[in-house]
């Protein structure tokens, strides 16, 4: 994934034209000598090996707890203003300082985290769902359906993402609900392509043919035989989509298409502090940026760990 300017879009593998997709991780568990009981167990073992991913998971869970539990953890009440105080740097009373309205920056950061994480998680869930359904249908049904769905996917990929996002938000307004579905509408193609490529390989496997031979219908085969074998790439993709969505949302906020005040997100907080570069209030710029950095870094490490854990070709412990 390259969550960078302009392409704030998950690219779990560098995705080329569909024929370039590496079929590498579609081999099936053939690891000899493993005495574990199930693929899930195998997965857990491999994942536990990944210290950094474990730490990242902890960090993310911690972030979710403090952000969504902000009413309990935040040192001050939400949106509590102290106009006479104004913006002052970090102190014992305000660890991260206060903003222009004398609002505690840490409190704000936690509530902003709610929105950033909420958008990240919701976009990942929604785009993964849509992508899996479309990718599975395209890959499994094939022929004209596949052609049509893939052309639609191409079409979505051809549009410059950030620009279309901004345009869409201009049209549909920018509450967090709209941001979520607009982002999801521009994120699903990556999952769809990965799932389709996987399905194309898996549906040629003999066990799928065996299921057909026993009279199983398409939906049964997809749900019971095909999708369980795509779980790895799907989960990895969904994970990275969380990070990409958070970055995309913050980019949009930075351009002025973020959530409406007084609600705020990390991206919006950076945007609000843009002008303080080179002034004594530059601290307002640091903390939300570090929050995004920490979250995205943790999500990426987690995704990396998951990728290894799901990859049957990685050597066993």
């Amino acid at each position, binding site marked *: 994934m390259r969550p960078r300017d302009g392409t704030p879009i998950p690219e779990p593998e560098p995705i080329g034209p569909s024929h370039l997709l590496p079929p590498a991780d579609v081999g*099936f*568990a*053939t*690891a000899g000598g*493993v*005495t574990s*009981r*199930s*693929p899930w167990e195998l997965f857990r073992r491999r994942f536990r090996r990944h210290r950094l991913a474990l730490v990242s998971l902890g960090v993310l869970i911690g972030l979710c707890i403090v952000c969504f539990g902000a009413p309990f953890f935040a040192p001050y009440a939400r949106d509590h203003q102290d106009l006479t105080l104004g913006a002052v740097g970090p102190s014992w009373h305000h660890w991260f300082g206060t903003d222009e309205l004398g609002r505690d920056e840490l409190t704000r950061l936690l509530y902003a985290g709610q929105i950033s994480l909420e958008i990240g998680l919701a976009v990942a869930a929604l785009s993964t769902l849509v992508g899996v359904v479309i990718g599975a249908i395209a890959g499994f049904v094939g022929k004209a359906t596949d052609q049509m769905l893939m052309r639609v996917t191409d079409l979505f990929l051809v549009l410059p993402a950030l620009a279309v996002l901004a345009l869409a938000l201009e049209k549909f307004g920018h509450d967090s609900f709209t941001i979520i579905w607009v982002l999801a509408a521009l994120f699903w193609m990556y999952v769809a392509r990965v799932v389709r490529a996987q399905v194309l390989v898996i549906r040629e*496997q*003999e*066990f799928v*043919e*065996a*299921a*057909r*031979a*026993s*009279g*199983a*219908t398409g939906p*049964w085969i997809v749900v*019971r*035989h095909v999708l*369980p*074998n795509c*779980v790895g790439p799907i989960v990895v993709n969904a994970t990275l989509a969380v990070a990409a969505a958070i970055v995309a949302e913050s980019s949009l906020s930075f351009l002025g298409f973020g959530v409406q005040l007084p609600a705020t997100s990390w991206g919006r907080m950076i945007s609000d502090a843009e002008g303080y570069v080179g002034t004594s209030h530059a601290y307002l710029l640091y903390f939300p940026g570090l929050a995004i950095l920490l979250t995205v870094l943790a999500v990426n490490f987690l995704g990396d760990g998951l990728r290894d854990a799901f990859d049957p070709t990685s050597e066993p412990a």
Partner: protein
Amino acid sequence: MSSPSVAPDAKPARSDSAMLEVQDLVKDFPIRSGLRRGTRGRVSAVAGVSFTVPRGQTFALVGESGCGKSTTARLVLRLVPATSGTVHVDGVDVLRAAPADLRRLRSRMQIVYQDPYASLNPRLSAGAIVADPLRVHGRFKADGPARVRALFERVGLDPVDVHRYPHEFSGGQRQRIGIARALALEPDLLVLDEPVSALDVSIQAGVLNLLDELQRTRNLTYLLIAHDLAAVRQLADLVGVMYLGKLVERGPADRLYNEPQHPYTQALLSAVPVPDPPVERRRRRILLEGDLPSPTAPPSGCRFRTRCWRAQPICAEREPPLESHTREHRVACFFPGPDPAR
């Protein structure tokens, strides 16, 4: 080598109750290329194959890889659509059956695959794999687990292992899982697609014995796909030899093994080692020259002529029909005859 399966009293040999009847089966694959992706040509994978398998018997389809035998197996099960021809299973037209009928039909014919690794879903436990066909047909119900365990026992697996996953089994065990899955729906016809060729020789016999035993106890009909004649000798009642999508010789196993008429059959048989050392030493091995011709442009006339030592000009002009040699033994050759080397 005496084969127990050819004993006439072991099975009812009533040809009137044909379990599987295949008529003029054809499968063409189009070749696409060019700017407009138009059809450039066709590959005739199966070019008019006919045979009949009586109930309770084994028909072995033998040929080099790429000759179309596996395609034939899948055509019979309608896993790939046929271009033309008919397939009747117990009198029911498989290729034209309505979806609902096909579903019912499929519970009566099952397949066992060559590759015991690729044919088992790695994400399902062995028990779930065996139970899957039952669930598909809504026959799992309350006694499902017991039935699965019984199936495990029937194929020689420990029922305790139902919770284990495919990667935890050996190749032979896996193949038994595949057989148990195929048996779950209590089919009448089993298609065995090279069921032992991926296994170690030491394990092969066990699996073959199991299949033999199952056939006798359950009166199963087998369509057995194999790439060499020796492997199927134990099971086969009838044998068909395929070359480039066509049957070149077909007949009862003992006749075909003892009096092969087609040069290709003779070549295949010559590759089979004979257990009697003096015979083996006397034996002249027929080495086929050249490669298998491309199925996109099969040779004119007899398809085997390019590699045949008996080929005459007529072989290039006309295609030899599959004609009676003796009553049930048919050969597609203008110059059939016994192998001079034997």
